[in-house]
C-alpha cells in the first residue's frame, strides 16, 4: 500500500544504532522487574492532569454505553421486569431475616464481651476511566491522596469487592481489579472457613488456590475476604465458588464493567497491644536464670508500667550481679507465677523486700 504511493527514502546515517536501542529496551525491562513502580509517578501525574477532561468526557461515553445496552434490553424488558419483581419479594424476606440475625449477633457479642468490629471509613467516588489491556485490567477513580486514599485499600460497589487501590495520584487513583493478572487476595470460603488465595488471570472468573490439598469446595460456596495481612477488612463479600474444568474459580458478585459509583474502604487493622501481665506469664526461672529485676521507680513524668514489662520480657543473665540492692529484692516468682499486681508492690516496699530476700535464700 505504501510502496505504490510513495517513494522509499534511504536510511539516515545519524540514527542511534539499533543494537544500542535494543540493549536499552532490554535493560529497561530488567530495571522494571527490579523496580516495578518505575513509571508510577509519571502515570499518576499524566492521569491527574487528564482528570478534568476525563470527568467531562466520561459522562457522554457512559450515556452512549447505556444507550447501546438499552437497545438490547428492549426485547427482554417484560421478562426481566417479572424476574426482578420475584427477586425483590425474595430479597425482602431475606432482609427481615438479616435484621433479626444482626440483632442476635449483637446480643451474643455483648454477652461474650467480644471485641467489636472496627469502624471502617469510606470514600465514595466515581469511576472516570477504565482500561482493558492484555496485561492490565484497571479502572481510574476520581479520588486520590487528597481524599486520604492509599494504596492497598479495598474498592467495593453495592454488590461486593471490585479490587484494590494500587496507585494514587493527587486527585485520581488506579484500581487493580480482582480479575487482573497481578491480583492476589486472601479469602475465606464458607461454610467450613477454608482459607484460600484468589488469583486473577485476566479472565472473568479468578482462580481459587486452597491452602490445603484435602479441602473439597462445592459450587455455590460463599467467598469473602479473610482479612489476613491486615490490609483488607475481613468478611467483604467477593463471590461464589464455581467448579470449572477441575479447577475452582470464583464468580464475582461485583460487575467492574458497569460500576459507576464505588466506595474505597479506609480499613486499618488496629496495632496489636502487648499484654499487660507479661511478667506474670514468664517462667520463674528460665535456663537457670531469674528474670531481670524491674528498674527503680521512675520519675513522675515516666510511665511505670512499660519499663517493668520490657525488663521482664528480656531477662539478662548479668543483671543480678550489677543490679542495685533494691533490684535484688525482687521476689522470685514461685513455680506458679503470681499475678504481676501482687509482685510489683512488694518490690517497692522495704519490708516485703526482706521477706522476698529470705524466700530467695530458701529457694536456693
Amino acid at each position, binding site marked *: 500500500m505504501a510502496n*505504490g504511493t510513495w517513494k522509499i527514502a534511504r536510511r539516515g546515517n545519524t540514527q542511534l544504532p539499533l543494537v544500542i536501542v535494543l540493549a536499552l*529496551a532490554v535493560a529497561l525491562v530488567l530495571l522494571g522487574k527490579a523496580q516495578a513502580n518505575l513509571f508510577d509517578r509519571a502515570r499518576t501525574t499524566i492521569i491527574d492532569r487528564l482528570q478534568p477532561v476525563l470527568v467531562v468526557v466520561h459522562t457522554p461515553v457512559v450515556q452512549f*454505553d447505556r444507550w447501546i445496552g438499552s437497545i438490547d434490553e428492549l426485547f427482554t424488558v417484560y421478562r426481566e421486569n417479572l424476574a426482578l419483581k420475584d427477586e425483590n419479594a425474595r430479597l425482602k424476606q431475606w432482609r427481615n431475616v438479616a435484621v433479626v440475625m444482626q440483632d442476635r449477633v449483637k446480643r451474643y457479642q455483648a454477652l461474650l464481651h467480644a471485641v467489636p468490629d472496627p469502624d471502617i471509613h469510606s470514600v465514595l467516588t466515581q469511576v472516570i476511566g477504565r482500561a482493558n489491556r492484555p496485561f492490565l485490567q484497571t479502572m481510574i477513580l476520581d479520588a486520590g491522596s487528597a481524599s486520604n486514599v492509599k494504596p492497598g485499600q479495598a474498592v467495593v460497589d453495592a454488590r461486593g469487592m471490585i479490587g484494590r487501590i494500587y496507585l494514587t495520584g493527587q486527585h485520581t487513583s488506579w484500581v487493580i481489579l480482582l480479575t487482573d493478572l497481578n491480583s492476589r487476595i486472601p479469602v475465606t470460603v464458607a461454610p467450613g472457613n477454608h482459607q484460600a488465595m484468589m488469583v486473577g488471570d485476566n479472565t472473568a472468573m479468578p482462580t481459587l488456590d486452597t491452602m490445603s490439598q484435602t479441602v473439597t469446595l462445592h459450587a455455590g460456596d460463599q467467598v469473602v475476604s479473610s482479612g489476613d495481612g491486615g490490609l483488607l477488612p475481613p468478611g467483604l463479600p467477593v463471590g461464589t465458588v464455581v467448579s470449572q474444568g477441575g479447577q475452582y474459580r470464583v464468580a464475582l458478585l461485583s460487575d467492574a464493567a458497569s460500576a459507576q459509583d464505588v466506595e474505597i474502604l479506609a480499613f486499618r487493622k488496629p496495632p496489636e497491644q502487648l499484654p499487660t501481665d507479661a511478667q506474670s506469664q514468664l517462667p520463674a526461672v528460665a535456663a537457670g536464670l531469674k528474670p531481670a529485676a524491674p528498674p527503680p521507680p521512675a520519675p513522675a513524668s515516666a510511665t511505670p508500667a512499660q519499663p517493668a514489662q520490657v525488663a521482664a520480657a528480656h531477662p539478662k543473665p548479668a543483671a543480678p550481679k550489677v543490679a542495685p540492692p533494691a533490684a535484688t529484692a525482687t521476689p522470685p516468682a514461685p513455680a506458679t507465677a503470681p499475678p504481676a499486681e501482687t509482685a510489683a508492690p512488694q518490690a517497692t516496699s522495704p519490708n516485703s523486700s526482706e521477706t522476698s530476700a529470705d524466700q530467695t535464700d530458701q529457694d536456693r
Partner: protein
Amino acid sequence: MEFSDRMGQWMSGRLLSALVPVLCGFIAVLFSNLPLSFTNGLVPAPLLALVPIYFWCLVRPDLMTPAAVFGIGLLQDIMAGGPPGIWTLSFVVTYAVIERQREAFAGLSGLAAILGFATASLVATACAYATVALYYWHLPPVAPIVAELVVTVLFYIPGVFVTGVVHRRLVGPLRSDF
C-alpha cells in the same frame, strides 16, 4: 533578508516534518491509552502507535529512527500501566524486523499490505506476550493478546489513511530531498 527568511521557513518546515512522525506516534499512544471504552471494556484498545511506526519505517526510516521508536514505546509503557519496558522492547523488536525486511514489506500493496502490517503486529504482540511470560514466570491467557492483535489490524486501514494524509500534507513535500 529575504533569503534568510526563506531559509528560516525552510528550516522550520524541515524540522516540523522531521518531528511529525514521532509526534504522530505520541498522539497515537495517547489516543489508544485514554481510559475510555465505548464497549464497556469488552474490546481492548488497539496498538495505534504501531501504524505510524510501520508506515514511516517503510516510507521514511530517516524520520522514524530506533530512538524515536524507543520513545514511543516508553510513552506506551507509561500510559498502558503494565510492567515497565514491555512495549518499549516489543516496538523496538518489531522495528528491527520491519527494518530487516523493509524491501519485502514495502513491496506489498492492497490486501497484502494489510497482511504485512498484521505480521508486524504479530511480532509486537508475540514479543510482549513472551516478555510478560518471562516477567511473571508463567503463561498469561492468550485470548486478550489475540483480541489486541485483531483490533490493531482492524484499525490499520483507517490509521494508515490518516497517516497517509499527514504524510502528504506535512512530510511528503520534502521527500524529494532523499
